């Protein structure tokens, strides 16, 4: 179910005569090609356009989510090795967390994503999500090096915040909205959750595990809980 503000923006967009594709994207149906239009990793690797459903946003505006997902798509791109941060659901992880446990970080995301868009606009004439991947990477590198002005408290701190939350979204339990279907764990070879680990599973070079693993800790009866 879409949130009220998404529906609001849909009406606005219709009034402004935007395309159905743009409409779907803003409302929550997100084409990978639409987020990162040029030189996309997935396309370079010969993948077909993948349409990913963006979960209904909790606290970020569609524009903020666009900017965030464009950052995530460059932090950890979709490529020959498989899905990137966006496809793993990191955007959803961060948006949901900002509505709850990480709500003290919401203001930082809002202010700094706006600063990033403003900087992109000034330098390259478009919001961050609309830049080429080369331009996006340049700005990310400058953020990491702390040479981009206009961030609170500074660009590197925000870069590190998004990076830390991306790690949580990629490698944390899928229950929290990221690591979709265990895609993050698959990337690094983490076998999943088991409540009883056999000695063999702790052997050096073991790659075929004997324990029963699950994709989420909440798949075990003992920890069953309702959806986050």
């Amino acid at each position, binding site marked *: 179910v879409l949130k009220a503000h998404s529906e609001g923006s849909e009406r606005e967009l219709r009034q402004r005569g935007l395309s159905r594709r743009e409409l779907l994207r803003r409302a929550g149906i997100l084409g990978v090609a639409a987020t990162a239009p040029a030189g996309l*990793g997935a396309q370079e690797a010969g993948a077909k356009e993948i349409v990913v459903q963006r979960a209904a946003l909790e606290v970020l505006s569609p524009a903020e989510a666009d900017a965030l997902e464009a950052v995530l798509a*460059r*932090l*950890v*791109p979709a*490529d020959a*090795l498989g899905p*990137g941060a966006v496809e793993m659901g990191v955007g959803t992880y961060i948006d949901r967390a900002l509505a709850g*446990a*990480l709500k*003290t*970080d919401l203001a930082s995301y809002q202010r700094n994503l706006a600063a990033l868009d403003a900087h992109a606009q000034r330098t390259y004439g478009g919001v961050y999500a609309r830049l080429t991947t080369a331009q996006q*990477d340049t700005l*990310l590198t400058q953020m*990491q090096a702390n040479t981009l002005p206009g961030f609170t408290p500074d660009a590197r701190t925000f870069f590190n915040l998004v*990076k*830390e939350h991306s*790690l*949580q979204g*990629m*490698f*944390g*339990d899928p*229950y*929290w909205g990221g690591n979709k279907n265990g895609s*993050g*764990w698959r*990337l*690094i*070879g*983490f*076998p999943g*959750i*088991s*409540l*009883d*680990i056999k*000695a063999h*599973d*702790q*052997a*050096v*070079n*073991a*790659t075929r595990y004997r324990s029963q693993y699950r994709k989420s*800790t*909440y798949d*075990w009866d*003992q*920890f069953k809980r309702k959806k986050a």
Partner: protein
Amino acid sequence: MATIRLKKTDVVVIGLGAAGGVGVLPLAKAGLKVIGLEAGPNLDLRAYPSDEVLLAIRNGNGRKNNQEIPTWRRNSSQRATPQRQFGSMMNAVGGTTIHYNSQSWRLDPWHFVMRSRVIGRYGERMLPPGTTLENAPVTYGELERYYDKCEYAIGIAGKAGNIRGRRNPEGNVLEAPRRRDYPMPPLRYSGWQRLLQDAAFRLGWRSFRAPSAVTTETYQGRPSCSYCGFCSGIGCHSGAKSSTNVSTIPAARKTGNFKLVADARVLRIGVDNEGRANGVLYLRRGQVYFQPADVVVLSAYAWENTRLLLLSKSKAFPNGLANNHGQVGRHYFTHSGPTTFGLFPYVLNRWNGQGSQALHIDEWEADNFDHTGLGFIGGGSIDGRSEVKPIGLVRGGVPPNVPQFGSAWKAWVAANVKRVGSIGSGGGTNTIPYEQFYLDLDPNYRDSLGEPVVRVTYDYTETENRMHRFLLEKQRLWLLEAGAIQTWSTLPGPNAYGVHAYGGTRMGHNPDTSVTNRWCMAHEVPNLAVMGGSNMGFAGGHNPTLTVQALAWRTADHIVKNWKRLTA
């Protein structure tokens, strides 16, 4: 709403964690009526899902601690600010023993008399400038029987290396003599630890497995550990970890003399006209209660022990309870954990296992080596552990020469992160107290009840940096011998928020340099006991919890034996 005055009890204990959770057992066993107040809830085994995000990162079972994060500054000329969003202490019956790594060590006898031993071997000039280090008012010899009681009552798994002088190389041959072996055999070796064991042998270093507060066979009716890999920072889903809420606290309840009150947040310690503690004021579900008691035991961790004393002002104690000598909050320091990473040509499978499943070397701990010319005292154990959770490994396990984002980062992580090992001094190194570092109440930041939070003024000096560099180099040698093809590390910054906090209510003979006496009873308040690391003005190069617990047991024993005199 009026305060409800409850019926008087013999002893009221503030905080049921590592220290108070052990201290209540000998008190209740001796027949004293004990009421234990715990600020957190009484959780069951479903409260510890294998969820790194919820528990290890967001400290989901530490709600009180999360909203009273101490502020931190490096020196008293700076303005302190909160540095973290989430704390690392639990708030529940059992306290932080619920999610501790659970290594349970005896300290080396040297640590108790460090000051005089350093002067004796190296001369006075070897003592770092500005340190307030004193010999502890208790020796290993006095504490040995309490270590032993704790190991059996809590349930520790390990292998003795020195039973009354008989050495066994399967255990730590450098350890001090003990009266008997551990009640359970040690945790199994992981493949990673076998790799390290062979390397240590080639280096001529004597490796051994850590003692762990976890079952390796059925003990006290609890099942043995299943090595699930979500232990440290999480909690145990099966009751195998010997947290106080499944070991000593249930034993205390069985006596019929112990009453547990969860969700009881203590606000103040009461004082009568003669300056004696007369009970505690606490808040529970919106109602304020006063619980009178003959003896008050404060066991709420170093920060809260200090804060409650400073907040409990009275005519007799205008600067806070037991603080007429200005010693509350002084001699504060925390442990450090320098760590070196190594990339291996093998898949290490360190994911799983138990938090204290570790292979150790004590060659560089205590005074086990000659410090002449090194510029520091003590040292630390170095160890290779299992139980590396995925977010934590990726966060720490990427070397600085790899791009920090993009397809190159992703490719490196995908190919290598499962091959990254580490050797650390995770149990802590031999840090010491200094004149310029202390705890007090922050003038600017308050918790959700409007109480000031603790302000930490703490930093490492060049002495700690030299010790860290020394240990990092030993760690690197071990990794290389085990087959690492690349190693990396960073010099640790001050760990102001450590779960191994020392001082604040230091124990000692002299009221001008300590808050509690050799029994951990306040110098200025004869019927106030303090339990916890806040009593310790000394640390070892190992985890402190078992020493905290042995001291708590000893204090409880002292209260029992001197009941008439203490309550007269």
